[in-house]
Every structure is written in structure tokens, then in C-alpha cells.
């Protein structure tokens, strides 16, 4: 019985392969975008975990100095000779113009097992590992990529994070020029009979972190991606809903016949559930394959974004995780179930003897418009309330979600009201009919139009955000990179010679000096700034006390970057701990885009007094712009400095802009994908409606309107609806952009950007959505134009 039922149900898809294709495509696309985003997130997170594991960061406590400076070697030896099992690590970075490599130097003789990792297993040449020039263990990906010059021999090993090298501490000391350990790892088991570690040292003991610093920093980015994935999933489900709704409507007659033949309702519903599940599983599998492909294609971009925004390194490649595939399939099945629920419910309630009336579907849907309007209003109010009272990134996304869903629900109400108005204004009967008929169609098309609205709004919102960011960023770069030339020396000795040589040849030689510290318990940097008009006139301060510069250079106050200011909710004048012994009031806040961590600036003299060991090897040089290239060449000729250490302003700007573009490449790609899905949703819905609408069109044709005119009208109507949807998407998109800039960005990155609008982009989007509408409507219109008159006549003869 069930088999026969299934057979007859499936015969529908044989007759309507296009519809089946839509359903499969919708499900597959929804799954693909969602699971693709999940795969990217999972890969990145796994990469952070690997990075943490490499040094036992996830399992071993550490000892470090409160001010973030290296631990003196004598402190380390004192602890060892007191019997404590601690192990030194020298961590640093080797850079060149186009490459940087993080160096983790461990002491394998004392490192606890957890810190050694799998990389040190096997037949490593230990004598070479321990003695100069040493070996660097790197992942195969890192070995293939761009690397700084003059490195020791590379040995490929698994389990090393990208762009990082694991090596002996002696090699790390040589490469980074640092002899004191950056921190000490503490073995979990200490020998018996020793006093607690805290009594033996002034160093700060930090417990292993559940999540690494980088995982915390990048959380917001992954939430962003997830939100995009969810949006795509929702849009995909619109397609599924439309396709399934249509299939159920068209099969009402079959259902009735099957039931009349004695098929119990339960069997019918089981058969339908089986049918949908089979399709869902098959399309889900296709979707997973597609999702994997999308993720693999986007991964290099994501890696670029994470590197550009957070300095986090993840591999540009993707590994396959079966758990991910299964969870994606489950999500697909749940999505299909949600999309089918309404149709199943209707089938369950369908009176056995009532005539199968496809029309009833559209009319019933029309009654819900009013309630949709009310729901939209409620959501808008909720959105406002969350904006007012909510905190954090999740609240930001909640504002976005309520805003978008509200706008989507509002769309049919908006269109209906608008068409009503226009209808009242027109006198021509045909035009009046067109308006009335369009209004009639809105319920059937509303889901597809909502999908289009969401895609358009997301597009406008995101591109406005990126555009605003870009504009602000470029302006900021101009201010921030005020000096014409940036020069680095090999070591401090050369730096002194360089500064002396430069002094008579330039307007000013400004030292650039910084050191890593912990600011409010997160890794950060402190810079020492020399008193010069270059800074006083150009440095981009967002807000400052009136005498900020004077107090800064007098060593009485500190400037901090916007990220730190917002993250810690600080205020001007509030005191901030720079080192154990020094607390200074905040005199100003400066914007510092593209840097995830906190930063503070103190006067140069104070800096030298506080951190006498920080090497001074970099300078900003002021010369007339036209002299910069010649001076750069002269420096390279006179001093033996690597080319990448002498750079002019334009080079740095170009590099920064490249990083920026890389950062938003993924966003752009997802944007295009979402818009594509929305276009497809529109096509599905129009195809659905076209076949149902013959009974409405036949009378109009019968009273003398040619098929061609009818077809053209159909086309025009689609264009009209798309244009109206676009019009509504403008305010929604701008609101979205505002929330992204003023709420989400502040939470995610710590900076707030002024909003700029780009009307040219809107026009481009209008064009795109019209093209989508034309493409989607042309097939049904063409079909209508070619409908044989006999079929139109049948409408009158064949009352189902």
C-alpha cells in the first residue's frame, strides 16, 4: 500500500522534473552555504587549537612577568636550582617585506611532554637541532609559502601551526636576538617537598587558557560568517518552501484520489514524509559536496582575512571532517521538515471530499498578510529595544536579525498597500486589472520577494560598511603615515650611525620604538613617541583632553588606541596600568584600524626610562616628498641594510590597502552567492505561479487581450515587483549598515566608523535585481506567449 502510494507520489516528479530540480537545488544550496561556512569556521578553530597545543598553551600554566617583558635568565635558573620544573620558551617573529614567521623556541631538555607535541617525535637530527645554525620545524604549507630570507634549514613536520616554526631555544635566541625567555612553562607535577611556586617567585602564574587569545579575538569574525551562513540557509529554505508548496498544491487531486481509494491518512503522510526525506538526504549530500567546494574555494580568502584583521594564521586549505558532514545533513533534514510542515499540516486537514482547488492556497495565504504586518511591527519594536538595552556582539546580531525578519514580513504589506493606492489612481480597466491581479499574486510570490529583499538589503548593508571602512581607512592611512620614509637598521649600533647620518640630510628623524606588554590583561604594545609637529599635526585623535600632546611628551599622560578604549569601556582621564610601577591617565584616544590588540603611546623619554632594553632600530624620516626616493637609495648604498627595511610611504600604503582588500574578499564572495540564491528563489516562485495562473489569465485572453500582451504584462509585473522590493531594501540595507558600523563593528573589532553612502552601488543593485527579475520571469512569460489557445480554452471546459 505504502509502496503504491509512494510510487504514485513520485510519478509527480517524473512529470515535473523542473520542479524537482528546484527543490533539490534549493535544499542543496541552503545546505551548501550553511555547511560551507561551518566548515570554514571549524577549520579556523582547529587551527587555533593546534597553535595552542603546540606549546601546551591549552594544558600548561605559565610564568611570565607582569609587565610583559622577558623573564630574566637568572630568574629561570634560580627557579630550576630551587627544584621547580619550569621550562623556558623564547617566542618571537622574523619578518621581511612580504613574509613573517613566528618563532617558538623551546628547550626540549626541560619542556614538559605536553609542550613538545607530535612534531618532535621520530628521527630528528638532534645534534643539528641543538647546534648552530639549528633546524626549524614547520608545516609543509609554511615551507612552501613565502618566508623571510636567511633562515636555518627547514624540516617539515605535522602539527605545527601555519606561518610558525618550532625550534630549539638556542636557534630562537639567535633568530630573534633575545636571550631571556619570553615566558616559562610550568610542569603539571612538581617534585615533592617544595613550597608553592607563588612563594618562590615574583613572576605571574597564569593558568592554561580554555581558549587562546587569538580564538577570543576572532570569535566575532566567525560569528559574522555564521550569520551570513544562516542568512543563506534561510534564503535557500524559501526556495524549498516554494517548491514543496507548489508540489503539494498540484498533487491535491492525487491525494484525494489516493485517499478515496482507501489509503489511510497516516500512510499518506508517511509516504509524503519518506518522499521529502529521501529528496532531502540526496540533495543534502549534494549540498555538502558543494559546501565543501565553496569552503575550499573561500578558505584562502578567509585565511587572508584572519591574517589581515587579527594576525591569526590559519592554513588556506581545508580538511574533511565526517562530523561536520553529518551535522550539515541533519540541518538539511530539519530545514526540509520546517519547510514541509505547513504543507503536511494542510494535507492532514484536507477534507476528503472537498474539490481540489489550487486557488484556495493563494487566497488563504492572503489572509495572513495582516498578521504578518503586525508581526513585523513587533519585530521592529524588539529590534529597537535590543539596540537600546542590549550589550555585546550577540545583541548586535539580534538587532540585525529582528530588523531583517521584520523587514521581510513587512514586504507583502508594503507591496499590497502600494498596489492598492496605484490601483485607485488608475482609470484604465486593463491597468486596474493588472494592479489587482498583481496584488492577488503577492502572497504566492512573497517568500521569493522576501528572499530578494534580504539578499539586497544584506548586499547594501555590507557594501556600505565595507565602503565606509575603506574610505575611513584610506583617510586614516594618509594621516597616520605622515613621514615620507620609514627606515630600519640591523641592530642598535647601526641605528645610531644611521640616525647621525640622516640628521643633516632630512628635516627630522623620528624614532619608532615599541615593546610588547600586557594591557589590562591582554597582550598589547606600548610605543614611545618623540615630540614633533609630525605627530601633533597629523596623528588621528578621536577624542582628547585639550593639552593631550603636551602632557604626553611631558611623560604625564598616555594615548591609547580606540580598540582598548572601547573594549575596556575606558574614559578620558581614567588611569591605566602601563607597567607594575607606572600608572598614567588617558589623555587621548586614536583610531588604529587593522590592529586587533590594545596599544598605548607614551612619551619617548619615559619609554626609554621604563624599557631600557627595548632596541631602537626604526625611524620615521621627514624629507620633501620628491627627495624621498633618492634618500632611500642613498641609505641603501651607504648602509648595509636589507632592502625591506627602507620603505617609503607609498609602499607601506600599497601594502596596507592590499591587506584591506584581502580582508573583505570573503564578504564580497558571500554577497554574490546570496544574491544568486535569491534570484533563483524568484524564478522558482514565478514558475510555480505561472502554471497556477491560467484560470485567471484565460478570461482576460478570452475578452480580447492577445497572449503577447499578457506575456509582456507578466514580464513587466515581475520587473515592477523587483523594483519595489529594491526600493524597500534601500532603507533596510542602510539600517543594516548602520547597525554593522555602529554596533557590530564596535563589538567585533573595537572601532566605530563614520557611515558613508554609495548611491552608485544602489543603482548597480537595482540593475542587478531587474536583470534577475527579467531572467526569472522570461521563461514563464515565454511559456505563456506560446500557450496553445486550446489550453486556455480548456480552463473554461475543465472545471476540476
Amino acid at each position: 500500500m505504502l509502496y503504491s502510494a509512494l510510487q504514485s507520489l513520485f510519478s509527480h516528479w517524473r512529470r515535473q522534473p523542473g520542479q524537482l530540480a528546484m527543490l533539490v537545488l534549493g535544499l542543496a544550496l541552503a545546505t551548501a552555504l550553511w555547511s560551507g561556512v561551518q566548515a570554514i569556521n571549524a577549520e579556523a578553530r582547529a587551527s587555533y587549537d593546534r597553535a595552542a597545543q603546540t606549546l601546551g598553551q591549552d594544558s600548561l600554566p605559565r610564568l611570565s612577568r607582569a609587565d610583559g617583558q622577558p623573564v630574566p635568565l637568572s630568574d629561570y635558573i634560580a627557579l630550576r636550582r630551587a627544584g621547580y620544573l619550569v621550562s623556558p620558551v623564547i617566542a618571537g617573529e622574523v619578518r621581511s617585506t612580504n613574509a613573517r614567521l613566528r618563532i617558538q623556541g623551546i628547550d626540549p631538555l626541560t619542556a614538559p611532554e605536553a609542550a613538545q607535541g607530535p612534531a618532535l617525535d621520530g628521527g630528528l637530527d638532534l645534534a643539528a637541532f641543538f647546534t648552530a645554525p639549528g633546524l626549524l620545524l614547520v608545516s609543509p604549507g609554511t615551507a612552501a609559502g613565502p618566508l623571510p630570507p636567511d633562515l636555518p634549514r627547514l624540516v617539515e613536520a605535522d602539527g605545527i601551526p601555519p606561518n610558525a616554526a618550532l625550534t630549539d631555544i638556542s636557534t630562537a635566541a639567535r633568530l630573534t636576538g633575545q636571550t631571556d625567555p619570553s615566558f616559562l612553562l610550568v610542569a603539571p607535577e612538581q617534585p615533592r617537598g617544595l613550597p608553592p611556586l607563588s612563594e618562590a617567585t615574583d613572576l605571574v602564574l597564569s593558568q592554561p587558557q580554555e581558549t587562546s587569545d587569538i580564538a577570543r579575538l576572532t570569535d566575532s569574525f566567525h560569528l559574522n560568517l555564521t550569520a551570513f551562513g544562516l542568512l543563506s540557509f534561510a534564503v535557500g529554505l524559501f526556495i524549498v518552501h516554494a517548491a514543496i508548496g507548489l508540489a503539494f498544491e498540484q498533487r491535491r487531486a492525487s491525494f484525494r484520489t489516493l485517499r478515496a481509494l482507501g489509503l489511510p491518512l497516516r500512510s499518506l503522510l508517511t509516504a509524503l514524509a519518506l518522499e521529502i526525506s529521501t529528496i532531502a538526504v540526496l540533495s543534502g549530500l549534494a549540498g555538502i559536496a558543494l559546501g565543501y567546494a565553496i569552503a575550499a574555494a573561500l578558505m584562502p580568502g578567509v585565511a587572508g582575512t584572519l591574517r589581515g584583521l587579527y594576525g591569526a594564521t590559519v592554513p588556506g586549505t581545508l580538511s574533511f571532517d565526517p562530523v561536520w558532514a553529518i551535522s550539515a545533513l541533519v540541518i538539511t533534514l530539519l530545514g526540509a521538515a520546517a519547510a514541509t510542515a505547513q504543507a503536511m499540516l494542510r494535507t492532514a486537514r484536507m477534507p476528503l471530499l472537498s474539490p481540489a482547488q489550487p486557488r484556495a492556497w493563494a487566497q488563504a495565504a492572503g489572509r495572513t498578510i495582516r498578521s504578518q504586518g503586525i508581526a513585523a511591527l513587533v519585530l521592529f519594536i524588539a529590534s529597537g529595544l535590543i539596540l537600546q538595552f542590549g550589550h555585546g556582539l550577540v545583541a548586535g546580531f539580534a538587532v540585525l536579525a529582528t530588523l531583517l525578519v521584520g523587514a521581510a514580513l513587512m514586504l507583502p504589506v508594503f507591496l499590497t498597500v502600494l498596489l492598492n493606492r496605484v490601483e485607485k489612481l488608475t482609470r484604465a480597466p486593463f491597468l486596474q486589472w493588472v494592479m489587482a491581479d498583481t496584488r492577488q499574486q503577492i502572497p504566492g510570490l512573497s517568500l521569493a520577494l522576501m528572499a530578494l529583499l534580504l539578499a539586497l538589503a544584506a548586499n547594501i548593508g555590507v557594501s556600505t560598511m565595507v565602503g565606509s571602512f575603506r574610505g575611513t581607512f584610506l583617510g586614516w592611512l594618509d594621516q597616520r603615515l605622515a613621514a615620507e620614509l620609514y627606515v630600519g637598521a640591523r641592530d642598535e649600533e647601526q641605528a645610531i650611525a644611521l640616525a647621525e647620518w640622516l640628521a643633516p640630510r632630512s628635516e627630522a628623524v623620528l624614532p619608532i620604538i615599541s615593546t610588547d606588554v600586557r594591557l589590562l590583561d591582554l597582550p598589547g604594545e606600548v610605543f614611545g613617541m618623540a615630540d614633533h609637529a609630525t605627530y601633533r599635526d597629523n596623528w588621528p585623535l578621536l577624542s582628547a583632553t585639550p593639552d593631550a600632546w603636551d602632557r604626553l611628551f611631558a611623560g604625564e599622560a598616555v594615548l591609547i588606541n580606540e580598540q582598548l578604549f572601547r573594549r575596556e569601556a575606558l574614559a578620558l582621564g581614567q588611569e591605566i596600568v602601563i607597567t607594575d610601577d607606572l600608572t598614567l591617565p588617558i589623555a587621548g584616544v586614536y583610531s588604529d584600524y587593522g590592529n586587533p590588540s590594545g596599544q598605548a603611546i607614551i612619551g619617548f623619554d619615559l619609554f626609554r626610562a621604563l624599557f631600557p632594553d627595548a632596541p631602537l632600530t626604526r625611524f620615521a624620516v621627514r624629507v620633501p616628498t620628491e627627495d624621498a626616493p633618492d634618500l632611500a637609495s642613498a641609505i641603501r648604498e651607504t648602509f648595509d641594510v636589507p632592502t625591506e627595511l627602507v620603505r617609503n610611504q607609498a609602499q607601506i600604503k600599497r601594502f596596507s590597502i592590499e591587506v584591506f582588500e584581502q580582508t573583505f574578499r570573503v564578504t564580497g564572495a558571500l554577497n554574490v552567492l546570496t544574491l544568486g540564491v535569491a534570484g533563483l528563489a524568484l524564478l522558482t516562485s514565478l514558475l510555480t505561479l505561472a502554471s497556477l495562473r491560467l484560470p485567471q489569465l484565460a478570461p482576460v485572453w478570452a475578452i480580447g487581450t492577445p497572449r503577447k500582451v499578457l506575456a509582456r504584462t507578466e514580464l513587466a509585473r515581475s520587473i515592477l515587483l523587483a523594483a519595489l522590493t529594491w526600493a524597500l531594501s534601500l532603507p533596510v540595507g542602510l539600517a543594516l549598515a548602520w547597525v554593522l558600523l555602529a554596533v557590530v563593528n564596535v563589538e567585533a573589532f573595537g572601532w566605530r566608523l563614520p557611515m558613508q553612502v554609495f548611491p552608485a552601488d544602489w543603482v548597480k543593485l537595482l540593475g542587478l535585481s531587474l536583470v534577475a527579475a527579467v531572467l526569472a520571469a522570461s521563461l514563464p512569460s515565454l511559456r505563456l506567449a506560446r500557450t496553445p489557445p486550446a489550453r486556455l480554452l480548456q480552463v473554461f471546459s475543465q472545471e476540476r
Partner: protein
Amino acid sequence: MFRFLLALLLSASPALSQGFAGLGTTAEGFAVPQPDPVFDFPSDHGPHPAYRIEWWYLTATLSGADGRDYGAQWTLFRSALAPETSQGWEAPQLFMGHAAVTTADAHYSAERLARGGIGQAGATAEPFEAWIDDWAMTSTAAEGADAYSALSLTARGDVFSYAMELQATGPLVFHGQDGYSVKSAEGQASYYYSQPFYEVTGILDLPDGPVEVTGTAWLDREWSSQPLSETQEGWDWFSLQFADGARLMGFGLRETGGSVYTSATWIEPDGATVAYPDGALRLTPLASVDVAGRTVPVEWRVELPDRELDITTRALNPQSWMDTSFAYWEGPIFFTGSHDGRGYLEMTGYE
């Protein structure tokens, strides 16, 4: 695995050195022991960085105030990656410390590793100290006396620690030809001398609580660059104390074919020595037990016909397994037969 390889670098075991590119058998750039050595004290009590390997090896047979027998071991191995010394992380001198306490029913062992050049481990001749982390062997000898004539000794593991004072009652003794100890028919050799006459008092801090102990101890000093032949699998080393105050040091190096290269030094109570060449000492394994998954002979027949010595040794604890990165058997023994007494046994190369 890494620790294991590291042990290969540090170990003098021939079977293992084969597995490590013959590192234990070649002496590229390193000094090689020569016959007819002239020792210069106190400087020779300190390290010899020009040689590949070196150790300060102390074993003590002890009796507790609780009436039980104990054994203790303290060893600092030095292993050079290059025949030079320097300051800082790059210094190519590596150190490995082993410490153990043996009771009749337990054997506690601990290990430490460190690089020289930063002060975490090392040895100095004047004043004499050999240390790794908080483990130390420090001279407490009076001015003018031999630095090894009085020592204080500490070590600490996860579950035990000890502190001992040692006082020598006899002179240093030199093995082989005046301290040039030949290890194979092919001529591999080391510099080797001992202080076998320590009296010990100290405290062992064990999981059951502290125990006061007294007893005797034996310090071995040995350094070389190519200690063993490639065909030698391991060694069995005995130090024996007889009732009249005489001592015997004897070892057998096991060749892959089954033959054994033996060497022995008879030490009179006044420190006078007689060195015995290959074949004079006969070592015969009697009973074996399963130790850490290996079959290890823990009862031996030891014969030195020239001294009418024919004894059977028995371990205080047959499971005296040093569970370190380079694992071996090391523990106190008793012997009966033509002579009675106590001693120490070390067995390596049982895989």
C-alpha cells in the same frame, strides 16, 4: 620518543649508539684517551669538555634506623655535541642527572636533563660541585684535602628526596693502567678512577616518611669519547665490599657473539690496587626475572680465581629498574660464598 633519542646522545651503550649513526663510536674532533695518563687534581675532578662523555656516578649501600636495607644512586652524565664549551643557550654541553632510592620492595627513580652554558647544570673543579637543578654533589672537604674526600649530596624526585654527608676513609683508586681503562680487544678505552671508601650518614625522604640511614658509598669518575666497541651490546658492572675492608670493581662487556670482555680491579683496604686483564674475572648469570618487560639476570656467579673469589650475588630488589629515558638496571646486592658482603650492580643493554 624524543627523550629516547636524547638518551642515545647521552648514553654510552654500544647497542644504542649503533642505532644513532655510530655516534658513540666515532670521536670526530673530540680528544681520545691515551695510555699512561697523568691526572691533575683538583682540575680533573671537574669536567672535560673536549671529551664526548663523562660521568660522576655515586652508589651507596645503606642501612636504615628502621633496620631495613636501602640503596641510593646519584649520577650526573655530561654529553658533548661538540668538543667545546661556551656560555649561553648554544653551549654544546648537555647534562643528564639520574637519582634513585631502592628498598626491598620499591625502587624510586628520577631524571633531569639540562644544557650547560646557562648555569642550570654543570660541574666545577674548584670548589668542587656537580649539579643539575637542585640536585648537587658538593665538596665539603677541608682546605688542602682532596676535594672528593668529603661530599654532601642531594637529589629530589616526584616522590622521594635525600640528603647525605659522605666522608672518605681511603685514597682515590685508579682502574686499568693507572686510570686508563681498556674496554675492548680493539682498544676502546676511557679514563676511570674511583673513590670507593665513603662512609655515609643521611636522610632518605620516602613516601612512607623520612628514614635516617648510614652505610658506605662508591664514587666513579669516568670520561671518554669512544667508550665501547660497535659489537658490544651492554655491560654488567659490580662494586663489592668485603668484610676486611677490601673492595672489588669488575665489569663484563657483552659482545654480540656471546663472548664477554671482562676487567677487574682488586682494591686492598689501604687503597693499593691490582688490575686484572680480560678473562681473569668470570661472570655467569644464574637466575633471571622479568623486569619492565625484559628478561634481566639478577643473580650472578662472580669468580676471580686469582683471589679465590667465588660468590653468588642476589639483588635487594630484583626490580631495581631505572625507568629513565635511557633505561637500565641499577641496585644494591648481597653476596655469599667464598666471601660475604654487600655491593652494587649495574646492568645495561637488556632489551
